[in-house]
């Protein structure tokens, strides 16, 4: 039985490994990762301060324990350098390995802007546990953090940092937080609540320069204003890691292009999670990864299975204004009906025929999540 090789030990990699081992305990399983392979949950990074977690205690299990649990060989701190889909082989830190089936669960890179200024390189970004450890080290014994990006990660980190006593500035060209997920009124309620938690907002402006200044940095914004801070966190989005797939001749678009059964354009090469694009969808969230992991495990175990995505609302972990949102699929026409009160925002997106296509709930309205979710059509039925 040819080996199943999984590249990446994030939620995608470990979920497909765990689900596969439920179906097949014989086929050899090799996992390869550039980091040290701890099993941790990335969503938990966004409220680790509030939950009293450190980078060490965020790791639920070490690679060694996962290897035993999954009966897998896990190679840590190694780099996947090339894939040869014809020969079914790959170069890993200079060593040539062969695979029967290969799963790419390599995740995404934080988008980096190249800004002017002598400290633009000093901006931090967080998309895994190693990044987070570096971030926590940078903010320890400091007081001020500036976050570029008022999206999901930017808002969650801002809330967590404020709760831990940091002075937080958030800068975004959009004029309300979570612009891609929330309609304006729902975004403004989030803005008010986070301002109440201590966030200083700089919306409708971008960062133009980052320069060293005293022991910290000075950010110059597009309106000419300046702000000083101790640490700069860039949280402006993710770019799926597709280079290796492209170099191997696999078709890629925003992510590694895969079919409904998560198969890439090359036989026996699959992809899931933040690096994959399934029918135009790149969904860097936990629930889609769980769905894909289960479907791909069955396919790897010999029963080709298409992934299905029910409606999957995204929970925004901002305790100052808990929010759950199911964005209407891109290109859906219809409009938002919004009811906004001081303690709750209920925004429903209905199409021309009046059927529900998306929602955004804030504050106490999040209790309606399950009922409204049942009304939504599946994303990929």
């Amino acid at each position, binding site marked *: 039985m040819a080996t199943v090789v999984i590249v990446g030990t994030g*939620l995608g990699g470990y979920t497909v490994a*765990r689900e596969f081992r439920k179906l097949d305990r014989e086929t050899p399983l090799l996992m390869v990762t550039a980091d040290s392979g701890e099993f941790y*949950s990335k*969503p*938990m990074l966004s*409220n680790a301060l509030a*939950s009293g977690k450190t980078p060490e205690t965020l790791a*639920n299990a070490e690679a060694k324990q996962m290897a035993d649990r999954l009966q897998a060989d896990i190679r840590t701190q190694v780099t996947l350098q090339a894939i040869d889909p014809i020969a079914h082989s790959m170069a890993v830190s200079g060593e040539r390995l062969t695979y029967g089936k290969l799963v790419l669960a390599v995740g995404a890179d934080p988008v980096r802007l190249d800004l002017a200024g002598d400290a633009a390189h000093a901006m931090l970004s967080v998309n895994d546990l190693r990044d987070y450890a570096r971030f926590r080290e940078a903010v320890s014994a400091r007081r001020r953090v500036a976050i570029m990006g008022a999206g999901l990660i930017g808002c969650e980190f801002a809330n967590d940092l404020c709760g831990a006593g940091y002075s937080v500035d958030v800068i975004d060209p959009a004029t309300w937080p979570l612009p891609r997920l929330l309609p304006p009124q729902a975004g403004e309620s989030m803005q008010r609540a986070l301002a109440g938690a201590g966030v200083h907002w700089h919306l409708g402006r971008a960062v133009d320069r980052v320069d060293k200044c005293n022991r910290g940095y000075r950010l110059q914004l597009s309106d000419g204003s300046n702000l000083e801070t101790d640490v700069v966190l860039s949280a402006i989005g993710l770019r799926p890691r597709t280079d290796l797939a492209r170099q191997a001749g696999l078709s890629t678009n925003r992510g590694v292009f895969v079919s409904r059964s998560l198969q890439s354009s090359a036989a026996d090469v699959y992809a899931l999670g933040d690096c994959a694009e399934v029918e135009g969808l790149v969904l860097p969230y*936990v*629930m889609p990864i*769980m*769905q894909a992991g289960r479907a791909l495990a069955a396919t790897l175990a010999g029963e080709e299975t298409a992934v299905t995505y029910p409606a*999957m609302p995204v*929970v925004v*972990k901002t305790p100052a204004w808990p929010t759950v949102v199911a964005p209407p699929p891109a290109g859906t026409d219809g409009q938002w009906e919004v009811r906004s009160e001081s303690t709750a925002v209920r925004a429903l997106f209905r199409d021309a025929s009046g059927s529900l296509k998306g929602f955004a709930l804030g504050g106490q309205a999040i*209790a309606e*999540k*399950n*009922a409204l979710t049942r009304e939504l059509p599946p994303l990929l039925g």
Partner: protein
Amino acid sequence: MKRYMCVICGFIYDEEKGLPEEGIAPGTKWEDLPPNWSCPDCGARKEDFEMVEVEA
């Protein structure tokens, strides 16, 4: 009554409250949740749940 936290996404299941909107009555013990129950926020299944008991 105990509270359990999903280690994947941080969702808390509180036995005292149950999940009425999912038809799970208050007071339902963790062991009595149906085996195919999954975390409402992230879909992690109960069987592979590494729910961590947190103090009430």
